[in-house]
């Protein structure tokens, strides 16, 4: 006796078949969304998306019927179908076969033409599987009409398979693949494309000329450049401090001590250079700047890295852990940025409160405790205050 599961599946199959018959009888038109609904119900675990069921397109009796021209069909020969079905560890395989045989009878009425071709099924599964013969190349998705026919065909279907099982066999439709490769090649060419010498010369000439018409003492840094430089300089004090701290106080050898001294002097030079640059930026900032309208500065776009603007490097990760770490670290960086900003604001707001002594004396201890916890312990740890009094 068939198990409840099998019964359920049989039920599904028959319903699908019924619908198939109905549709075929009527004028072939429209997306067969209804079909789709029937097939999606298998009990599958987890978040893996249930996708593309095995589609048996218009299967002619034997051999792959692959019609070129406007309406492409994905066809799986019955033979292959059976073989594939057999590979599925299903008890209902036998059931499938018989249903298919029935279905084959219907496919005769299939006409080659017709814009509203029903069988614009997307053949998802590649002939990679050794048991299924040669399927492959008929996987063309014709999208000029019925979109919804993706994976919905007039045929009965077996239990939907999970991405996990079949994902590696998926194949995107040929138009997409073609478009994708053309697109990649175009990007490559654009990345490699260089400005010709003539163009560069002509451009340089023009730019120089137009810049002579700019108002006479142009500041060395444009506002955009000032901001960019400042951004770079933001981290410098912290970084250099770290280097300074890293230099040990004692050294085993004279040689090491000398090297350490040189390092420190080098750092000193760097600091001076930065200070000098800051002065220049300051001058340009407050100097004879141009129009400052209230709509003053446009918000910054992603002007992060100008070099190699066109090339998007591929970031590969080799393990799940890496990906997780990447996400986690990025988030942490954002969080830290926010914490720093908050800390600055809080310091600016809270410390004056302590200094001003405007609060009632009674709550002083609590106030100190709270502010300390907030500013110094990140709001996570609260110090214990002990009242040091002699009980009389």
């Amino acid at each position: 006796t068939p198990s409840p599961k099998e019964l359920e599946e049989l039920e599904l199959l028959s319903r699908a078949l019924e619908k198939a018959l109905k549709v075929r009888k009527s004028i072939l038109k429209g997306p067969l969304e209804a079909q789709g609904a029937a097939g999606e119900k298998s009990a599958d675990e987890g978040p893996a998306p249930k996708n593309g069921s095995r589609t048996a397109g218009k299967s002619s009796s034997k051999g792959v019927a692959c019609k070129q021209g406007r309406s492409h069909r994905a066809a799986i020969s019955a033979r292959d179908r059976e073989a594939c079905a057999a590979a599925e560890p299903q008890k209902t395989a036998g059931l499938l076969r018989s249903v298919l045989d029935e279905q084959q009878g219907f496919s005769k009425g299939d006409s080659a033409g017709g814009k509203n071709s029903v069988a614009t099924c997307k053949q998802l599964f590649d002939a990679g599987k050794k048991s299924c013969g040669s399927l492959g190349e008929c996987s063309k998705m014709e999208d000029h009409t019925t979109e919804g026919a993706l994976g919905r065909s007039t045929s009965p279907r077996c239990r939907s398979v999970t991405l996990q099982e079949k994902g590696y066999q998926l194949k995107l439709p040929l138009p997409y693949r073609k478009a994708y490769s053309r697109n990649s090649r175009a990007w490559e060419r654009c990345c490699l494309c260089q400005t010709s010498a003539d163009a560069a010369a002509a451009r340089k000439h023009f730019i120089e000329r137009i810049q002579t018409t700019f108002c006479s003492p142009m500041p060395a840094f444009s506002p955009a450049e000032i901001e960019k430089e400042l951004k770079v300089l933001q981290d410098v004090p912290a970084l250099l401090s770290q280097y300074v701290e890293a230099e040990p106080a004692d050294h085993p050898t004279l040689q090491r001590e000398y090297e350490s001294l040189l390092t420190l002097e080098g750092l000193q030079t760097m600091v001076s250079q930065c200070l000098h640059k800051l002065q220049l930026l300051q001058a340009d900032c407050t100097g004879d700047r141009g129009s400052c309208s209230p709509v003053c500065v446009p918000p910054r776009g992603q002007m992060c890295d100008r070099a190699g603007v066109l090339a998007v490097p591929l970031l590969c990760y080799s393990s799940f852990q890496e990906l997780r770490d990447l996400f986690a670290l990025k988030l942490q960086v954002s969080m830290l940025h926010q914490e720093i900003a908050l800390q600055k604001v809080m310091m600016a707001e809270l410390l004056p409160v302590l200094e001003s002594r405007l609060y009632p004396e009674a709550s002083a201890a609590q106030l100190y405790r709270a502010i300390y916890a907030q500013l110094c312990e990140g709001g996570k740890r609260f110090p214990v205050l002990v009242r040091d009094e002699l009980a009389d």
Partner: protein
Amino acid sequence: RPAPDTLRRARFDRPQASLDFWRLLYALLKQIHGGKWTDSDAIDNQIRFVKSALWYHGYGRPELYRLPSDGSAGSRELLLAFSWLLHNLSLLEQLLAQNRVKTGDETSVCTCEDDLPNSQKGTTEIAPECGLEDRVDVRYLQWLNGKLKFQWRSLHAQHQEQCKLLHKIHLFTSGSHMDQILGHFSVTETDLIRQPENYKKLLQLLESETMQLEAFLEWKQLEPVYWQWMETVLDNMAEEGNICESQDTHVEKSGLPKATLCCPWADSLTGQIDRLSRDLMTLHDQLHELVTHRKAAWCEKVR
């Protein structure tokens, strides 16, 4: 979007081309600056934006800033500005890169701080805790802080979950992608299977982008012609300039409009610069002391 004719008309400083050109510059600059824009933005707002963006990038032709705010004139100036931007901002490359069709799973490894638009406001607004004579309870602050921490943790958890799912998709589809290097589908591509309408859209986007890229390559071939043509525009202006120079000399002297006394941008930047200077000075002094000390010690040892 503007017709090729617009450029030609701009060359001859035809006023009809001005409006189109303002709009073009507005659209381009807005994109560069990461903003959304609509055609319905008032023309004088658009003009103001373009002017401030050009100022921001260091464009120094005073004539441009003097153009009227109704967009009635100045197409030639705008043409010049446009060409300058082409070069200075690598406008085409920037826009292509920015609008790149995303077929894959992308993330940025940039650790730059997101610029909050109003982060530099002087007075922070603290939501008042129920009427304690306009004082704020610090406990409210603590509560807010806790809430924030909790939300960060939730976000973290969600990110990790997303990461897990992403990985699953990559794992399950590896071996299927036509691009050998990638080797697996992205979430977008996998989702196409479930949503065929998106497939059509994505395909169209890809194809139109490819056309844009090919147009870009063509442009690169013809680039010298463009710059030479721009030079003729300058030539024309120079000729005309000689004729009416005498009239404009007193205007020329003024240069760019002077900075008003309170420029919020300059103020906030000055603040930043001051803070940085202070930090660097501290470090400088610290280093100075350290180095002197070490040097003395060294000399002692070596004596």
